[in-house]
Every structure is written in structure tokens, then in C-alpha cells.
């Protein structure tokens, strides 16, 4: 079954189903399939059904919004009052949030029941969902393979149709790369469009929440709910409410697609290269033109990212000290030992690695050579995009260099894992919107993702291109057999 949230909203509006009924169906599917996929950390049927009943009551009272009653799963990085909120870590294994993230508030206000909290790489640090304290998530297309990360639980839940939609967050590709590896559609908005309040911080200047669903149209509907100014986040943008569905039906005639030569170089081979080529041809048939653009500094994005993100993370994660909430080591003889054991036991090894990288690049004598240099490169990388968007409306390329890899295949070598995000990271550094949508399968039947990158605040245009492509293709309708 491929139930888009659009179709579910229509069924609810027509009175052909109820939110309670929908939630029961999804909860049953979660109960059946989650043991194999491990996409959810927390499921609480009672809470979900209570929210569903409230949504039905709201509809009965004639106060339903567009998506009232449609269920959604939330990445376990979003604080939700009364829900265990772990961020994939032992450190927060006992943390029941006393407050709601802005994103959660928005979905509650829309009347969308929460199906549960999805698994993720610990503190969103990872590209395979293998760093979660709650065990790896498995790719619904092949359970020996990873779903990508860090929003791997959300991606697997949507791909496996355990949820019609889910929230994700993207710091270096954490929405787009798992969307690509699981054959779904995911969007990272322009930095500042979605409030970060209540979204547990990994790298504050890069983190951005966004929707994950089966279609671009669904992403547009979800973004209408998620986006919006929030005075509690100083980096939240003061812009009026936007209708992200407004351009969906716009024809692509005259659209200029930029193809960065750096994305189509030696690194891109085989099935991914072929599928992306075919997608380009399809878009041309729909009236688009292509133009080659240059992003000469994008090759430095991984290096700059692995300075900036760990630096911010090392500081952001200092609050996990066993004093006010979360895990505290059971035995300690003094304060220093309490800190050091709590953090050694509460964090997994990838998180500890990144904290140490961050502490190092910020430490005395290294700041200029690493942190400052990386910030300067960030400027150069962002300027490349400014130049490129003078020649095109959207930029297109692959989302990930490979399709889903095997569990354990890259865990031994962090560097190889980090290169999984080689095409997505530059977008975060620049603060631009980007999305991934399915554009084919490789020889092993694994999904391939197509990445679109928009100019600042060009989400609606990007969604337009994706939607038009999806009207002319059916990759997004394919579901794995489970």
C-alpha cells in the first residue's frame, strides 16, 4: 500500500476512515514489522490513540485542518512532552521530556497524532544508523543493509510503510542520504525555516528539521505544518507563512537545471550515474534545460564539515553531565570521576570521537588553523552556490555516492563512512534547501536518490520540480516487500 498523507487526508475528509482507525492500522504494522527493522525506539499505542481520538473529535466539531488525523512518526531528536526522548543515546535513555519542541507543537496544533519516536544515529552523528544505542535500523529493501543516517529510523519507517510520514533532521545529509538509501522523498529546508527549539542540537549552525514522506507533494504539505517563525530560536527566520504547495503544478518549461561538474566526476559510476542521467533526460522531456555549473570548493566541504560540526557538537554535548537529567554513572568517588565516567559510559564511540575532534580543533593553538580556516572555507563553498544560482533555478545531482551498504561494512573506518555525505554536506554549510527523491534502482534492487538543491527560500520551486518529475515517474510508488 502506498498511502500518501494527501490520500489519507482525503479519506478522513470524506469520512471514509477515522484517525483512530488509521492509527490502529499503522500501529499493527509497526508491531509486526518493527522487530525486523528496529525503526522505532518508542511506541506508545495508548498515547497515539488518545491523540487520534482527539483528532477525530476535532473533525467532528468541524475544526479539522488539512492534515488533522493523519498520523506521523517523529525522529527521537525532537523533545515531545511526556515521551521518552533519547536522541539514540544511552545518555538520554531515561529522559522523558518535560516540554515540546516547536516542531512537535506545530504537528499537535495541526492535529496529527504521533505514531512513535524513531530510531536514529546517536545524537544524529552517523550515516548508517549503526551508532544508535538502541541498535541499528535495517533497510526495508534489504534488512542486511543500512537505511542511511542519521534519520534512518524515520526513513525506514516511511519506506516500510510503518508510517505515512516522519520528521527528520539534516546536519550534513541526515534527511537526504537515508531518503535516498530507502527510496523515499525527504527535504531539508533553508536554514532557519524550521525552528530548532526542542530539536536536540548536534551542530547548531547546520542543523535543520524537515519532512520525510513518499512524495514531494506530501513533503510540501508537511512543510506547511513544520515551517514557521519561532521567537524562541534566535536563528528562526521572520518570514510570513508560506504555502509550499503553491508551485507544485507549475510546468517545467524554461526551467534551468544546473549540473555541477564536480558531482559528475570520477566518483560517480555505475547504476547511480545511469539513474541520475535518466532523470535528467526525463526532466528535459518535461521542458527543462540543463547548464553546467561549477562548485569548485565543494570538494573541501567534507573536511570543513568535520571541523565545524564536531566543534559545535563538542560544546553542545557538554550539557550531558549527569547533573540535571539523563544518565549518571552509578559509582564515582568525586566530581571529576562522576563527569568522566558518566560521559564515557553514556556516549557511544562515534559521539566520543566527534567530541574529541571538536575539543581539539577549538583548543588553544589550533583554533586558527582548523576552526577559523574551516569557517573561511565555508564562506567559499557558500559563494560557489551564489555564483551557480546566477545561471540556474535548481541544482541537480546524486544524493549519495552509493546505494545502501551492508551493516558493518563501513563501521571500522570513520573516514569512509564520512564520505557517504560527500554530495550533501555543502548544502548544509551554505544553509541552502535540498531534497532527495527516488530516481531508480541499482542492479541489486536498491533505491537510488536524486538530489535537488534550491536557492535560499526556493523550497516551493524545488518541490515543483520534484513533483513534476514524480508525476512522470513511478519510482516513489515502489515499496519493498516485507
Amino acid at each position, binding site marked *: 500500500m502506498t498511502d500518501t498523507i494527501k490520500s489519507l487526508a482525503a479519506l478522513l475528509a470524506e469520512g471514509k476512515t477515522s484517525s483512530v482507525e488509521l492509527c490502529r492500522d499503522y500501529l499493527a504494522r509497526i508491531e509486526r514489522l518493527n522487530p525486523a527493522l528496529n525503526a522505532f525506539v518508542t511506541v506508545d499505542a495508548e498515547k497515539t490513540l488518545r491523540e487520534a481520538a482527539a483528532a477525530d473529535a476535532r473533525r467532528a466539531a468541524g475544526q479539522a485542518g488539512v492534515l488533522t488525523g493523519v498520523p506521523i512518526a517523529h525522529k527521537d531528536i525532537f523533545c515531545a512532552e511526556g515521551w521518552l526522548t533519547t536522541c539514540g543515546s544511552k545518555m538520554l535513555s531515561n529522559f522523558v521530556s518535560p516540554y515540546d519542541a516547536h516542531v512537535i507543537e506545530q504537528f499537535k496544533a495541526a492535529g496529527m497524532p504521533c505514531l512513535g519516536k524513531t530510531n536514529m544515529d546517536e545524537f544524529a552523528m552517523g550515516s548508517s544508523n549503526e551508532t544508535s544505542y538502541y541498535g541499528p535500523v535495517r533497510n526495508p529493501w534489504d534488512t542486511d543493509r543500512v537505511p542511511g543516517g542519521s534519520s534512518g529510523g524515520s526513513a525506514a519507517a516511511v519506506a516500510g510503510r510503518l508510517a505515512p510520514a516522519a520528521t527528520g533532521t539534516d546536519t550534513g545529509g541526515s534527511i537526504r542520504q537515508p531518503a535516498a538509501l530507502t527510496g523515499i522523498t525527504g527535504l531539508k529546508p533553508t536554514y532557519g525555516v524550521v525552528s530548532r527549539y526542542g530539536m536536540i*542540537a548536534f551542530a547548531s549552525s547546520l542543523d535543520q528539521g524537515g519532512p520525510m514522506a513518499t512524495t514531494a507533494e506530501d513533503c510540501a504539505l508537511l512543510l506547511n505544518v513544520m515551517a514557521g517563525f519561532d*521567537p524562541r530560536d534566535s536563528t528562526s527566520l521572520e518570514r510570513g507563512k508560506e504555502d509550499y504547495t503553491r508551485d507544485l503544478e507549475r510546468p517545467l518549461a524554461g526551467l534551468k537545471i544546473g549540473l555541477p561538474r564536480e558531482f559528475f566526476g570520477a566518483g560517480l559510476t555505475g547504476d547511480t550515474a545511469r539513474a541520475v542521467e535518466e532523470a535528467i533526460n526525463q526532466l528535459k522531456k518535461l521542458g527543462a534545460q540543463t547548464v553546467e555549473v561549477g562548485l569548485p570548493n565543494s570538494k573541501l566541504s567534507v573536511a570543513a564539515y568535520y571541523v565545524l560540526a564536531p566543534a559545535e557538537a563538542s*560544546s553542545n554535548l*557538554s550539557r*550531558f553531565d549527569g547533573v*540535571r537529567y539523563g544518565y549518571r554513572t552509578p559509582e564515582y568517588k568525586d566530581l571529576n570521576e562522576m563527569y568522566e565516567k558518566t560521559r564515557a559510559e553514556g556516549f557511544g564511540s562515534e559521539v566520543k570521537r566527534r567530541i574529541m575532534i571538536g*575539543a581539539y580543533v577549538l583548543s588553544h593553538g589550533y583554533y586558527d588553523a582548523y576552526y577559523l580556516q574551516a569557517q573561511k572555507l565555508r564562506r567559499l563553498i557558500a559563494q560557489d552556490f551564489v555564483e551557480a544560482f546566477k545561471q540556474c533555478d535548481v541544482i541537480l545531482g546524486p544524493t549519495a555516492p552509493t546505494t545502501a551498504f551492508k551493516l558493518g561494512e563501513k563501521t571500522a573506518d570513520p573516514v569512509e563512512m564520512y564520505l557517504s555525505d560527500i554530495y550533501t554536506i555543502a548544502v548544509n554549510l551554505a544553509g541552502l534547501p535540498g531534497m532527495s527523491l527516488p530516481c531508480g534502482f541499482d542492479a541489486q534492487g536498491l533505491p537510488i536518490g536524486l538530489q535537488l538543491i534550491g536557492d535560499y527560500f526556493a523550497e516551493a520551486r524545488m518541490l515543483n520540480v520534484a513533483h513534476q518529475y514524480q508525476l512522470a515517474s513511478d519510482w516513489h510508488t515502489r515499496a519493498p516487500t516485507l
Partner: protein
Amino acid sequence: MQWETVIGLEVHSQLSTKTKIFSGASTAFGAEPNSQACQVDLALPGVLPVLNKGAVERAIKFGLAIGAKLNRTNIFDRKNYFYPDLPKGYQISQFTLPIVEAGELTVQVEGDKPGDKAVEKTVRITRAHLEEDAGKSLHEDFHGMTGIDLNRAGTPLLEIVSEPDMRSAREAVAYAKALHTLVTWIGICDGNMQEGSFRVDANVSVRPLGQAEYGTRREIKNLNSFKFLEQAINYEVRWQIEQIEDGHRVEQATVLFDPDTGETRMMRSKEDAHDYRYFPDPDLLPVKLEEDWIEQVRATLPELPQQKQARYQADLGLSAYDASALTASRAMADYFEAVVAGLVKQDAKLAANWIMGDLSATLNREGVDIAASRIPAGQLAALLARIQDATLSGKLAKQVFEALWAGEGEVDAIIEARGLKQVSDSGALSAIIDEVLAANAKSVEEFRSGKEKAFNALVGQVMKASKGKANPAQVNELLKKKLGAG
């Protein structure tokens, strides 16, 4: 060897906002532990800071008051270190680009001995930056553990850093007091030192007199009274000189002052060389100060202590010492100006003498602030007017003053009720003098034989006979006339 002391101060002034610098939690003092620590102050996962406009406005006010440069763009950094009273594991502070830079404050430093002329000293203020306060660690015994109260966490502070321009504890105290006066004067800080609203760190070093390079400094942390500041610096200077004279080196260190022993000691918790890993806080954007905002704030600035001092000297003819004393607080200056304004015949010196003399002594004795004086400025002015019109002698005026303080009513009513009116009627006085001269023939003889002292004894007798109410000047005049000496 002659030694020179070099002192720079870092003052943490708590800004008088209603809410925290980055959250909407209250800053009211004395609440139940952790009842004013919201999710942002507690650093719950996912929370974010939003800057309080009131804190920025107060920093601008301070910058304007010390004639400093206001950085039109200033930024917040993170200072990373672990401490249980620091919930985020970093303090948000301004490191590279503070809001205020390069100001100065001119202060009056009293001389060595009472009566020595005060010396003017200008202390350069390197910078003043906004930052958040930490919580409090309570060391009473909780089964051998420490209790953490985060109500204070996130309270806005303005850290005011001076150049190492002071050369003695006395100069440091004068500067600290002037700064305390200024921040309370312009209303950005309540100045309550017991509650920790104004805390001083002193960087102290010594060097041989004439040497250009500074010696190694030690930082005395968290001094919360001017007395402790003076004691701590004096102890520290003696200690450092002894160290060097004994052939040791002074190592850079952070020390605490123990008021019970009067000594400084090293802080044990600062064992590792600090590596704060400062970097710009990605959760906060650069703060931009618009010109019209700055001008709006400037318009709210009151006349400043230094400006008043200059005016008191130039326009009112007061000494530098008097002008400085009368501007020790805004309430003091307001009171003084109200008294002067209440006098028909302007006499600032008379007002100054009474305020700095009898009134200050009484306020001190009773432990009352001038703003709460039991004698309102209008009544003091009325009293002084009675001195000016010769109704009261100085001595009688003191009696009226005491009666005013005791709440016996208004000036003229007290004079009336107590019958304190000075006798200036020459007929009545003449009669008293005649009686006195008749009864003191011996003194009259002595005076006539050239003993000037005898004249004073006669004046005393007349005053006594008039129960102190005689106008002394008139007594003098009449007496001389009657004795044929006039």
C-alpha cells in the same frame, strides 16, 4: 628595594533586568532554590537562548556613561568548561568583540592622612562585555554532597575590565567605589554587594619601582565588599613582595580571600591550565546597535557624577572634596540639590556642611540611607533658612535638627514649641548684659586691665543668662559698646 604595586580590576555587575539574559525566567533575589530556573537556564536538551533587550540597553547606557566606544556589531562566544553550577558546560560571554570598549573613569583618591588633598586619577576601562552568571553551589552537608541552585544561572552580568592602571589598594577601592556609584547612578545595577550584585576580581602584581615590565599577577576572585578588596590587595602585595625578597618566584594563580584570616589562598579547583575553547555561539547572531537606539538610550542618561562634580565646583563654589562626597550616590546628590533649591538665599556651602556633617553622621548612626532620611530635604532647607535669617544660632539649629529627626514636627513649629528663638531684640539683650556686667565686676575689671580672655567669659555669661538664645554676634557688639571698647 622600592616596590610598585600594579592593579587591574574586573568587576561583575549584575544588571537590573526583570528576566535572565537568555530566558524569560525571573531574576528576583531570594526565591526557593531552582524555582526560577526554566528549561533554558537548566540547559535541557534542545533549548536555545534569545537575548534580553534590557540587558543590551543597560550595557549601552554604561558605555555612554564612560565615554566608551560602542561596538555597533558585537558577538557572543562560548567559554567552555565543566562545573556543576554551569548547566550548559559553557558560559555565553563576549570574548572577541564586546559591546563596550575603551572608556575611562576619573576618580578622587583620598590622601594618606585625613585632611590631605584628594588626588584625581583616571582609570582606563579596556572593555565591558555582557555575559551570563552561573548558579550557586551550596556546600552545607548533603550527605557529603554539594547542592546546586540554578536560580542565578543566566542572570545578566556586565563584566567591566580595567587596564592595570591602579598603583595602590586605595586607588583600587576609589575606582571600585566610583564604578559602584556609576552603575547604580545610571540605574543598570542595584549595587547590592551582600547579594552579589557587584563583585570584584583584582589582578595584582608587584615590580621594582622604575621597571617597565609587569610582574606576574595573581587574581583575587569574588571580593564582595570594598573593605575586603582593600585588605585582600594589601595582603597580596605584602605576600608577593615577601616571596620575591625571599628568592621565590610568583606563579600566576587564582586565589580566594578569606575574611576570617585576612589572607589569600590558591583555589584548588582550578588545577588544570584552562583551555576554554572559545568560539562564536552558533545559537546567537551578531548583535547590531542601531544609531537611533543608541540616541534614545543617551536621552535617558541622567547628569553623571563627574558632570555634577564639575558643576558643583564651578557654579556653586564647592571644593573638589565636597563635590565628590555629595555625588557619592544619586540619592545624596538629589538631596543636596533639593536642599539648595529650597533656600531663598543660595548657600551651597551651608547645605553641603549640614548634609556631610550632622545629617550624614545621623544617617550613619541610625543605619538609614539618605533616600529614606527622616528629615526630608525641604525641612533641612527650612532649618538652614532660619540660620540664614539669624533666627537660630548654630547651636540652636542642632537642637532643632535633633527634634526634626525625632519627628517632633516642622522647623518653625519646633522653634516655637521649644521657645528656641534667638533673642535679637537689643532692648532685651541690653537688660541681660547690664545684669551680667553688674554681677561680674571682677571680669569687667580684668578686661579693662587688658585681659582679652575676660571678654569671652562675659560673652559666655550673657549666652548662659539668655539660655543660649541670644544672637552671639549681637552680644559681642553690645558688650563691646558697653565696655567702651567698641
